């Protein structure tokens, strides 16, 4: 009974288009990275940043643009088209912090914006930082 129902659901639920989705994600994601590279190149040339700092600079500028586009309500439209093309770059991480910060403003600056800023990005930091500490510890005891 449940098995037959699951089969029926699978048959009648429309699927997202894999090919189209991947193509769009590729184009948008690649485009964002190229834009990042342009910012980094400008940083190197005009602000005389080192090549490592210029890439950090590029991330910060991309985050700024994400915050701005999220604020004016355009980012989600780009994301609707680009899918993972906006999620995977640093823009997705920034949007994941900016959007709840705005959303929960009515609940106050502390428990709303302050606390909820990390609702989606929190886990990213938890696992990213924990993994890096683990790598550091491993490197200390078993350097390679």
């Amino acid at each position, binding site marked *: 009974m449940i098995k037959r129902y699951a089969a029926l659901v699978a048959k009648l639920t429309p699927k997202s288009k894999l090919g189209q989705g991947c193509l769009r994600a590729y184009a948008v994601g690649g485009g964002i990275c*190229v834009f990042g*590279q342009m910012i980094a190149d400008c940083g190197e040339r005009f602000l005389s940043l080192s090549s490592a700092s210029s890439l950090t600079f590029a991330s910060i500028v991309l985050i700024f643009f994400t915050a701005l586009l999220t604020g004016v309500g355009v980012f989600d439209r780009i994301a609707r088209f680009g899918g993972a093309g906006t999620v995977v770059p640093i823009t997705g991480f920034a949007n994941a912090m900016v959007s709840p910060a705005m959303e929960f403003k009515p609940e106050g600056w502390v428990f709303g914006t302050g606390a909820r800023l990390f609702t989606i990005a929190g886990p990213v930091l938890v696992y990213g930082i924990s993994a890096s500490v683990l790598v550091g510890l491993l490197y*200390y005891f078993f350097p390679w």
Partner: protein
Amino acid sequence: MLYQYLKVFFVGGALCMIGEALILKTKLTTARILVIYITAGVILSAAGVYGPLARFASAGATVPLTGFGHALAQGAISAVQENGLLGAFTGGLSAASGGLAAAVFFGFLAALFFRPKPKDYQK
């Protein structure tokens, strides 16, 4: 110059395309994709795979969230080389601090100036 941008586009786009395929094929939510990417970045970086990719594709490898993981891992490793055990704890975040502080600060600013709007998507 153009060749450099092509490398950036192809590597960055490919990393995003893999993410899209994961979302559509496995029902992973975008939040999980973010966690998987940053963790994968840390692991690939520690394994010595991501460094060469970042040298090859520059922003094409550092802008995707795996690049954030790469920065965390390389920060931890080089801090351990300099400061020993303490570096395992200070290195990662120091290396990633620029992006993190920017996201927190600009997020706060956006909340200060903007209000979320309902969506009017049309075909």
